[in-house]
């Protein structure tokens, strides 16, 4: 059962490749597959921990897939993201092979969430990189290709560092499974752990290596950029958190991540102020959000607030990118109450305005940051919240107020997908206590 969220999208993608003509079949099958992934993720949540030793090879020797609380939550979110992205794509003109590629992307992200084997994780990263690179580069004009090229180049550097780290580690401890490595890790293996952590930091777009993200996201079609905003950086964050919380604690590394994360928050927000293109602005904001959540992790460890914030980030950022896609198509957005309402909800949630979901995550994380006496970073995190709010107000000012431009009909599929994510954001806000309890349970099991 655990392997199904990985195998199923690949099989369906294969069917799409064999029968490329049936677009309608592809649309509905992609939706059903995402729905199944979502249901499987939720069903994993009912058990505290499900383990699969793939191919019957036992624990330290084979690849072990583990669906514990954290990975099950992530898998169900992948399903949700898939559902929403598929619905949204119904209203958009997309090139051939969008559906097989996005399903392969979903499958590989599931693989990265479920595996506990370091080399297997590398393989999933590569599959994810290839699928996302093709998605990014097929839907762009010639000048847009530069962004895709930056994306693939920096991520190849990351893959190189990751693979060297894994190789060095395997050479010295002779293990690939996370917990098996952790039990044998010595002080001489620090270099390889640093290399692996740096690779994850590139993947999650932390500051010294963040520039692939704002260079590429806005080039893709709206569906693809929303898919990327929801999933790509989160896989890096998840892997970093997973690996570092299994390994024995390395205070210097956590300190370095904390410093980089703080700078990311600043750079993201300052960079966003300089942008005219809406999706590029949001991409910079993603960088600052990544910085915030990793700052929370590096100071307070894996806490329920970090998991909560990760869930909230996936939902809210995806929604903002979807809305941005709708807005960009039309020039500005006056006269649609639903989209305006959804934007306000997501923007306030992202900035951390009290009744919405971002507030609870931010409050707990910032409290943790101050408790661990990272005062400067804590103050900067507060300022960043304010900066996000100002940014969102600016977007509101440019796109939702003023003269009405043009009448472009927006497909109802796109409105439905935005509404779904808005409802999820609202329920994250209303039931935040229950969700936080769930997150606590997730990290306890």
């Amino acid at each position, binding site marked *: 059962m655990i*392997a199904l969220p990985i*195998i199923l999208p*690949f*099989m369906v*993608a*294969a*069917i*799409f*490749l*064999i029968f*490329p003509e049936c677009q309608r079949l592809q649309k509905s099958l992609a939706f059903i597959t995402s729905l199944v992934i979502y249901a499987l993720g939720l069903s994993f949540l009912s058990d505290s921990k499900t383990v*699969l*030793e*793939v*191919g*019957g090879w036992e624990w330290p020797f084979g690849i072990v897939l583990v669906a514990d609380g954290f990975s099950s939550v992530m898998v169900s979110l992948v399903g949700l993201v898939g559902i929403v992205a598929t619905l949204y794509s119904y209203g958009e003109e997309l090139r051939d*092979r969008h559906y*097989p590629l996005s399903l392969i992307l979903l499958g590989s992200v599931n693989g990265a969430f479920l595996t506990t084997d370091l080399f297997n994780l590398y393989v999933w990263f590569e599959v994810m990189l290839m699928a996302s690179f093709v998605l990014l580069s097929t839907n762009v004009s010639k000048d847009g290709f530069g962004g895709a090229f930056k994306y693939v180049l920096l991520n190849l550097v990351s893959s190189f560092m990751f693979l060297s780290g894994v190789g060095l580690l395997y050479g010295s401890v002779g293990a690939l499974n996370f917990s098996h490595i952790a039990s044998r890790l010595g002080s001489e293996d620090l270099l390889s752990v640093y290399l692996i952590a740096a690779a994850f930091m590139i993947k999650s777009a932390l500051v010294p290596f963040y520039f692939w993200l704002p260079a590429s996201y806005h080039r893709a079609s709206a569906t693809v950029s929303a898919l990327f905003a929801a999933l790509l950086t989160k896989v890096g964050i998840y892997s970093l958190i997973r690996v570092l919380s299994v390994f024995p604690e390395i205070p210097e590394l956590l300190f370095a991540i904390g410093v980089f994360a703080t700078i990311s928050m600043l750079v993201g927000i300052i960079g966003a102020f300089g942008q005219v293109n809406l999706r590029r602005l949001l991409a910079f904001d993603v960088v600052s959000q990544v910085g915030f959540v990793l700052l929370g992790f590096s100071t307070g460890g894996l806490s329920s607030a970090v998991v909560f914030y990760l869930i909230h980030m996936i939902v809210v950022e995806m929604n903002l990118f979807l809305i941005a896609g709708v807005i960009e198509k039309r020039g500005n957005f006056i006269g649609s109450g639903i989209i305006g309402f959804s934007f306000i909800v997501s923007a306030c949630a992202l900035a951390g305005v009290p009744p919405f979901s971002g507030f609870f995550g931010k409050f707990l994380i910032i409290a943790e940051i101050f408790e661990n006496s990272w005062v400067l970073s804590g103050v900067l995190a507060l300022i960043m919240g304010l900066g996000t709010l100002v940014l969102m107000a600016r977007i509101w000012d440019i796109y939702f107020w003023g003269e009405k431009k043009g009448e472009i009909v927006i497909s109802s599929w796109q409105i439905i997908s935005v509404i779904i994510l808005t409802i999820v954001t609202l329920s994250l806000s209303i039931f935040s206590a229950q969700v936080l309890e769930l997150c606590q349970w997730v990290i306890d099991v």
Partner: protein
Amino acid sequence: MSFVALASRVIIPLQIFLAFFFLFRGHNLPGGGFIGGLLLGLSLVLALLGFGFQRIKEAIPFEPSTVIGIGLFTAGISSFFGPLFGKGIFTGVWGSTVPFIGKLSSVLLFDVGVFLLVAGIVMKVVYSLMEEEC
């Protein structure tokens, strides 16, 4: 007939034979689906040099992506043989021995999938390069 065309007429059948030989021998000995698929793809490259792109495209009735899809699907299907016989997913199921092929198994089916996938990807690369040139 040019020398390359003549040479490819002789070499291609041998190379295809070698590709399948590597595929079937691959489980316990050097070889396997990946290397076999590469060899099969290379025979296509050789045919391209000998006969030209147009003739090859007319002679092969399917698209590269179809081959890739069938390969991926076959490899995926092989994972379900384990659960069918009461074992875990992706666990190998072994059958009887067949001359020239060796033991029939779900592992071999997976390798066939890899074989097709790799051959399809080489085909796709070659096609894209040639189409750009034309």
